[in-house]
């Protein structure tokens, strides 16, 4: 075996070891949800379940706790659609007409960085006044507002990447401004729209603090529900893991389609894929 193959072999072993270490907690979380109570509370711990036991999930659906996943889906989906629609139009104006100059763009991205706890406190008092606590409208509105800076910032970058020539040709052909946006710009940055929407959805889906403060029972999200299973004396491991898995699987599935855009999306557009 030559030196180069040897080197690759060692790197491969290191890569496998690191991947196993990073994935093990996720394996453990998933595996607990399929264990029976006896297996969960076994000492020493059982490293793999002897059979796939769906009991933990059945309990969640029977008790209605699984509805919190539905709440998460409704809240994350609607807030994503609104934020994408409103934000992309704003982004188009910023990218093409430089509306408000650099100052407006910088102000918008700085809104991304405000600390959630400082925002949610006055919002909560406002919502109490307007009766918006524990309603879809209230939490969707806040997620939309909180995700808007991200959408505007990312879409501004994607729109800037689209060459103007097609838009100009469309204008010459007699398209209205709105038609240019709808029929030329949106299709041209389809991939960017898709990637940004997935990230926006994920932020709302995974969010905890806003949901903890602004939801009670009616529209509680799965992240809030997970914490309900932590008891003072004992924790309901089966429910914690099963509920976590229900909330995590959808994200893993959508992220699988996102690989090419991950870096750009996570670096706030600083690195183009």
């Amino acid at each position, binding site marked *: 075996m030559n030196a180069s193959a040897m080197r690759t072999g060692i790197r491969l072993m290191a890569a496998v070891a690191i991947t196993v270490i990073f994935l093990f907690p996720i394996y453990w979380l998933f595996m607990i949800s399929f264990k029976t109570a006896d297996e969960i509370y076994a000492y020493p711990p059982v490293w793999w379940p002897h059979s796939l036991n769906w009991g933990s999930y059945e309990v969640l659906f029977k008790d209605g706790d699984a509805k919190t996943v539905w709440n998460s889906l409704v809240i994350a989906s609607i807030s994503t659609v609104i934020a994408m629609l409103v934000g992309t139009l*704003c982004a188009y104006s910023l990218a093409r007409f430089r509306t408000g100059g650099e100052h407006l763009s910088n102000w918008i991205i700085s809104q991304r960085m405000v600390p959630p706890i400082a925002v949610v406190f*006055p919002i909560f008092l406002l919502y109490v006044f307007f009766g918006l606590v524990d309603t879809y409208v209230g939490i969707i509105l806040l997620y939309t507002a909180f995700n808007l800076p991200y959408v505007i910032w990312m879409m501004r970058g994607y729109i800037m990447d689209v060459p103007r020539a097609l838009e100009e040709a469309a204008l010459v052909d007699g398209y209205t401004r709105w038609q240019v946006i709808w029929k030329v710009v949106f299709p041209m940055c389809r991939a960017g729209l898709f990637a940004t929407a997935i990230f926006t959805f994920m932020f709302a889906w995974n969010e905890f603090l806003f949901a903890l403060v602004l939801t009670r029972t009616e529209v509680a999200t799965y992240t809030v529900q997970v914490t309900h299973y932590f008891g003072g004396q004992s924790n309901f491991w089966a429910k914690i893991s099963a509920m976590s898995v229900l909330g995590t699987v959808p994200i893993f599935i959508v992220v699988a389609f996102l*690989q090419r855009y991950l870096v750009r999306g996570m670096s706030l557009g600083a690195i183009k894929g």
Partner: protein
Amino acid sequence: MSAAAQARHPTATADRGFKLMLVAPSILVLLLIGIFPLVYLLMVSFQNITMTDMDKSFQGLLNYKLLVHDTRLWQALWHTVVFTAIALPIELILGLLMAQLFLDKLPGRPIFIALLVLPVMVSPIVAGATWSLMFDNRFGPINQIAGWLFGKEMTLLWTINPSLVYPAIIVAEVWQWTPFMFLLLLAALANVDKSQMEAAAIDGAGYWRTFFKIVLPAIWPVMAIAILIRALDLFRLFDIVWALTKGGPGTSTETISMFAYVKGFQQFETSYTAAVALLIIVLLSIIVMWALKRVELSR
């Protein structure tokens, strides 16, 4: 593109009404979270509203004076700084090492990367829940593995013992966010000009010299953004700690966000919480303004 060159493009100009119509809805929504909270917090922080008292009279700097002498507040701020100062460098260095490992061709490279990025996608509250399963003193695997390594039974109380809670929280935090650093730094390293590195090698520069003189300056812009994003996230650290310790034992792992939560939503000290929230905003704004001058986020 210069302003003059841009003006010649028909797509670069539109009537004012159209430009503003596109922007207006977003600005309106952003004012809701950008301006309203600030104004409201400022107003309430000069009153004295508590759970038992709806005193809306002007109280001057009362709450700000309380704030200065609140040791629990400053401890919470200190905990936040400690978490950041320990977790961030570890994430950075581990991420950089992993990026180096995966930089060159490797069989199955895309699959490894796709798998390694999964922890970032998990909700932080789920990450915290996962690690509370991992760290359980009897039924969790961590004590079991520690037992094998040390050859005796381990029953460490990772989420209760004051000297173990910090390592436990930092492990969870590092587990979730090292892949973030890894992915960004991998992209940055892949863009480093290879010919420069080869030229340095020909000139007889060693590995470290090449790294510090050529690689590090080349990846620094990306590294700075990654550090900024993570630092801002760590400053508002809440979810993972909430799931693992709820700030305990006592208040020994309470972060500044958790402190504000307890004051506002459990003790209902409305006016005092407003002052704390403003303090958080001011501190964060200082960090952001300082950092944005040094980081090239826009083009």
